[in-house]
């Protein structure tokens, strides 16, 4: 059983005036973007344990819920979504950050935003409390969008793209192209469901409906793939459970679920590591726990982030 070591490196004092709702590093881990109920997004340069506030982005008229960095091949682009029903796309040009697009078609709070895998272009998905989610993309010189209505009753809370890697491409060798042409994403809603959507002939249709939670689905996260024939999604819910949904192409391709754990309080957020082997779960009890799948297929808690920082775990000596 792998043991985990979490050691705090440093803290960034954001200077936000209200609750922070999201924090994300860019692709290289050099910059950090945070967003807050104070309606601003702050960008810090974090290199070698120093931090430097580079920009404070204003423009949202309500608490900003989530930020997401686009792939660096498109430049320095950041998307943010907010309670004010808007998604704003920001770009850094010569050191200054500007708003390059504002998407305001939703009728209610936009709760989640995520850029699609870069292989599919400059495209993002956003989920809103008005029961719909939208795909916003840049093509032929302008921003376009597609809105998918009535996705979930009681609001869409979260959206996550599938990886662009074709499941099974790693083991099949050159037989299949590694990049899949079919775009998929998963959404989680207040109707306690997860829904998997795919793009078919230019339209988005629901491919699958996953039931299992008994309260609002707060967050969904599609595990990054490396080409193994397994698709995996983590979902966090108001019912205090985290569920892992796995689809194994080699055994029939149906989604099976397992409960990772029933926590003592609402689980708000789940995030996979870059290689997809560790899941970080954050809950209302203000704790962050890390989980890994053991050889037997059960999920074990590898570490608790707070304990690592306050107690002081064994740090390997690197001379």
């Amino acid at each position, binding site marked *: 059983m*792998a043991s*985990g*070591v979490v*050691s*705090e*490196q*440093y*803290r*960034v*004092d*954001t*200077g*936000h005036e209200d*609750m*922070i*709702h999201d*924090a*994300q*590093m860019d*692709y*290289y*881990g050099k910059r*950090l973007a*945070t967003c807050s109920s104070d309606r601003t997004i702050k960008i810090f340069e974090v290199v070698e344990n120093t931090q430097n506030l580079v920009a404070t982005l204003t423009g949202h008229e*309500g*608490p900003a*819920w989530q930020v997401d960095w686009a792939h*660096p*091949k498109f430049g320095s682009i950041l998307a943010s979504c907010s*309670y004010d029903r808007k998604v704003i796309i920001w770009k850094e040009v010569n050191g200054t950050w500007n708003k390059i697009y504002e998407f305001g078609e939703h*009728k*209610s*709070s936009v709760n989640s935003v995520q850029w699609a895998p870069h292989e599919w272009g400059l495209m993002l998905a956003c989920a809103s*409390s*008005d029961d719909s989610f939208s795909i916003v993309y840049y093509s032929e010189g302008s921003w376009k969008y597609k809105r998918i209505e009535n996705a979930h*009753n*009681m*609001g869409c809370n979260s959206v996550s793209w599938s990886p662009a890697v074709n499941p099974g491409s790693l083991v099949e060798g050159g037989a299949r192209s590694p990049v899949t042409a079919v775009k998929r994403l998963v959404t989680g809603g*207040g*109707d306690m469901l997860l829904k998997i959507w795919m793009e078919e002939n230019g339209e988005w249709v629901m491919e699958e409906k996953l039931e299992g939670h008994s309260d609002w689905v*707060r967050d969904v996260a599609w595990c990054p793939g490396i080409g193994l024939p397994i698709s995996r999604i983590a979902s966090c819910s108001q019912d205090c459970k985290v569920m892992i949904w796995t689809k194994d192409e080699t055994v029939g391709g149906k989604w099976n679920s397992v409960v990772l754990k029933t926590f003592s309080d609402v689980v*708000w*957020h789940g*995030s996979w590591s*870059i*290689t997809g*082997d*560790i899941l*970080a779960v*954050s809950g*209302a009890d*203000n*704790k*962050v726990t890390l989980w890994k799948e053991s050889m037997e297929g059960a999920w074990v808690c590898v*570490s608790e*982030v707070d304990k*690592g920082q306050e107690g002081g775990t064994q740090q*390997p000596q*690197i*001379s």
Partner: protein
Amino acid sequence: MKVKEIARTANVAWSPATMQDVHIACGTVAQQLDATFSTSARLEVFSLDLASSGLAVPLAGTVDSPLRFHKLAWSAHGQEGVNACGVIAGGSDNGTITLWAADKIIGDTEGAQLKQMIHHTGPVRTIDFNPFQPNLLASGGNDSEIFIWDLNNPDSPMSPGNKLHPLEDISGVAWNRQVQHIIASTSPSGKSVLWDLRKNEPIIQVADPNARVHCNAISWHPDVATQMVTASGDDRSPVVQLWDLRFATSPMRTLERHKKGILSLAWCPQDSDLLLTAAKDNLVLCWNPNSDIPGGEVVYELPATSQWIFEVHWCPRNPSMISTASFDGHVTMYSLLGGGVSAHEEPAEQPLQQSDDPFANLAPKPRQQPVETTPLKKPPKWFRRPCGARFSFGGKLVSFRHDNSRSVRVSQVVTEEALLERSSSLKRPSLNKISQTFVPRKPLVQPILRNRTSGTF
């Protein structure tokens, strides 16, 4: 925005939060007459099927009731077993409180009515279930009668203490949301009394000497044990008063916006910054009772209707849904988050039931079209994510949590100790010599690292 609508003039109770499928119970309202002078009454349970679009709500079950209702309440009591859905209690005239098994109504089986408890001398105007012990029911009636019933032993109710003189009608009872043995009652004279059930006596009496309040409703703060609100039905001073019982000589805050007496109030159990009131000026307002703006801060105003709304409730299961019951013959469910039915979709008129007021058909009242109103200015508490963690390149974990520091922590996560050993062995040889013994063994990790550090693909 309006989500669903039921064509009934009824008192309403939502299914408890522990029940997975949301249902709403509607019982015919007492003191409302129709042209046939019918006194028939029904208790109907509707299932809130949000998957279907449109305003109609499917009926799950119905049972005839001997008496019409002043108040309904639904408790999770007795929720073991496969189909247990709890108990619905209704307070009626003639001092009667009737209990029904909710699962029998929904399943349409016999024997739904469990018991009739007759102890009060006059109409039972208010009932409330204890949030900690769902088998305890409090009821208030005439002559300062308050009874506490244990549903496991409903034949002998207890009283919370000696009655205070002068005797008066009890217009509202409410159990404290934090302390299970405290209950408050209020009366039209403006006096509210707090009872301690362990000592079996009243502990404090509050009344505002300055305002002329005719207290219609009382409710406790969902989080703070010593705070409560009372609402006045008096048209001359239709105020909501927020009391902190540690300083009980005068109200802590007064919310004044309604032009006519308030008929009902409801405090959101999931977010104490949301308080709904419905008044005789046809308005339903949502307040933030904790803000210091003088006169009270209204965060949302429901679209105006043509008749009084006499009951508002929050859905315990789904905090963004509220229900309003109006004298215009409709029970309407709204979602405070947007979404729902657009203003243009109105359902075909449903065939009338005999308990509906036929006067309503003679002159069709102009029901005001719902207007697009802006959602709540500040998002409710159940929206705001307090804590999160995201992985980043190089095994770094960025995490944040809800504390006053407003800081973000960046941590290093390593789970493969063997890998760590090997990476540390890389650093040990001196820089001049490249170690011959180091053989790359983990092909998967290396390509990613190489690409990232060079910044190219």
